[in-house]
């Protein structure tokens, strides 16, 4: 064996750079989990260290797809957030919420069911955080009107939001990240994840019916309070609402055809944002742009560079080799381990840094398994696809396991507390953890049957 060949087969060199990058990475993740310092501050500072210490060059961080910032993710998020910021003041979301409550005829059980479905659909098409942020206040109002405990409603909404968000490419940040890395398009998610998410939603609805069906009762005169509300009064700006719905519709059509049109999802989202800004005739775009969740955007930017650093020094490759040794190349075993490990990890920690680390790890693993393949043939290798879906299902559904597992949960818990209805950690876990176990278990059966038994 020549010297070069030996070096090439060496997975990594454990030199000072390797240990520096690994240390920065591990300490950052520990501090992020501990929540002692804001996660965005940690990520941005750690990323800057990767650059200053020349573990990653600035060129690699900004311009190399495998090592640096994933601009697809960044601009998809910015585009969608801008559209929602422009849409929010029209009162559309309040309208939908009040309309749903009236469709439930003021009956708490029906309202809970309809709200769960609405939350799931909106979470699939927009993002989970926005959805619960807009629906939770109306939920609290309706619970007050009906004199029922709002906590079950709020928890069910968080669970439905995380399940619904799993269905599409744009529904949940892990999916956006996986789609970009694995070059999956919107319709891939619709074909592979939406069917199982519909099954999981039906299961959730059956369970809440069993758990709350007999308990949730209200008086007839209280139902009238809901029925007397006029949802049309929620619409503050009918013209802008029409423009928003037109652009949102256009964007969704754009997502459906983005693969065929050879347009990246971020391009579609940015086009929608640009068009709606133009149509709004606003002279104060800074107002809508300032409302973009910049801390989240910078968290992503920092994380991508941080992970890029440990990809470059070979830590991720080392981890992928360990994983291969564990599964011995058995694809079914790999899928199952990825799914369950992702679910447990995402229940405990933020699923965004988790997926940011897992994406390059899975790509590295694929390179070991199919060394002759490159590019799309490697990323979309038929045997690799179920592993991507397992990662998406595990990371998204795992968020239901605890109140800190997903951003939607954090928001719901925070709102309940402000309303003087504290949701304890264990009360959330009592609902969320069994739902998480059940949904991941069903997903496991689905992945096994669909990709390994029937392989369609």
């Amino acid at each position: 064996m020549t010297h070069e060949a030996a070096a090439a087969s060496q997975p990594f060199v454990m030199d000072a750079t390797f240990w520096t990058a690994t240390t920065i990475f591990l300490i950052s993740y520990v501090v992020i989990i501990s929540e002692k310092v804001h996660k965005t501050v940690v990520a941005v500072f750690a990323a800057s260290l990767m650059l200053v210490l020349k573990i990653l060059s600035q060129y690699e961080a900004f311009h190399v797809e495998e090592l640096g910032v994933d601009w697809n993710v960044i601009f998809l998020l910015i585009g969608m957030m801008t559209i929602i910021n422009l849409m929010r003041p029209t009162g559309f979301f309040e309208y939908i919420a009040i309309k749903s409550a009236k469709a439930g005829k003021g009956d708490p059980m029906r309202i809970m069911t309809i709200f769960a479905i609405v939350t799931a659909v909106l979470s699939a098409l927009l993002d989970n955080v926005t959805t619960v942020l807009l629906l939770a206040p109306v939920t609290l109002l309706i619970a007050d009107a009906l004199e029922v405990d709002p906590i079950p409603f709020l928890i069910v909404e968080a669970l439905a939001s995380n399940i619904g968000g799993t269905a599409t490419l744009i529904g949940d940040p892990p999916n956006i990240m996986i789609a970009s890395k694995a070059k999956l398009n919107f319709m891939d998610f619709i074909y592979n994840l939406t069917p199982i998410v519909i099954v999981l939603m039906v299961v959730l609805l059956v369970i809440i019916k069993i758990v709350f069906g007999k308990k949730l009762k209200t008086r007839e005169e209280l139902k009238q309070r809901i029925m007397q509300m006029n949802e049309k009064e929620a619409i503050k700006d009918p013209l802008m609402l029409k423009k928003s719905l037109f652009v949102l519709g256009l964007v969704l059509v754009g997502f459906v055809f983005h693969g065929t049109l050879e347009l990246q999802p971020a391009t579609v989202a940015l086009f929608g944002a640009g068009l709606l800004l133009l149509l709004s005739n606003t002279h104060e775009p800074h107002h809508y742009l300032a409302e973009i969740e910049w801390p989240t955007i910078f968290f992503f930017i920092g994380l991508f560079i941080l992970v890029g650093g440990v990809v470059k020094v070979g830590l991720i490759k080392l981890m992928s080799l360990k994983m291969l040794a564990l599964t011995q190349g058995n694809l079914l075993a790999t899928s199952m381990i990825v799914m369950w490990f992702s679910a447990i990890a995402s229940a405990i920690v933020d699923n965004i840094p988790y997926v940011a680390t897992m994406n390059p790890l899975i790509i590295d693993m694929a390179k070991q398994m199919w060394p002759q393949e490159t590019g799309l043939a490697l990323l979309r290798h038929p045997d690799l696809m179920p592993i991507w879906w397992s990662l998406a299902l595990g990371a998204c559904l795992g968020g239901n396991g605890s109140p800190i597992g997903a951003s939607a949960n954090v928001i719901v818990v925070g709102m309940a507390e402000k309303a003087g209805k504290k949701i304890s950690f264990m009360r959330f876990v009592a609902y969320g953890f069994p739902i998480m176990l059940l949904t991941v278990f069903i997903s496991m059966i689905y992945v096994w049957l669909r990709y390994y038994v029937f392989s369609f």
Partner: protein
Amino acid sequence: MKAKDIMEQVKDYLSPDDTIKNAVNKMRVLKRDDGIVGVKGMIVLDNEGNLVGMVSVKDILKAIIPFYMTMTELGEFTWEGMLAEMTKKVADKKVAEIMMKDVITVSEDAPLMECADLIVKHNLQRVPVLNKEKKVVGIIYVRDLYNAIVRVLLDDKEVQNL
């Protein structure tokens, strides 16, 4: 003239442990210097007589309005009797939970211009006056400053004729 020359005496105050119900009653029966019964705000003193906060009618209203209404535009979606319902819910809430804690004060030797400036800048209705030991010795109301202006602009005869 200084703050202590125009301030009104403190006749009653709230305790942080008072409930909203107690507070509303104390405010209802308190007699002002000009003889009118009922005030729209009171200072809150702890057991040692230190100023720890102030409660106004608006602070009480804020406690009554559910937070979700302030978060979104849900004003149209209320029902007959909702205010009464929500008021009953907070009746036993403690003054400590609803009082404004960062109270703007003046020293007893402060010039009137300083008092006027504070009242306008911070949109205040009343300013507690503190002595050197930081104890409240009086309260200046907007009306006290107004009376001071009246005395500058109109002489005693003109005031009598009004």
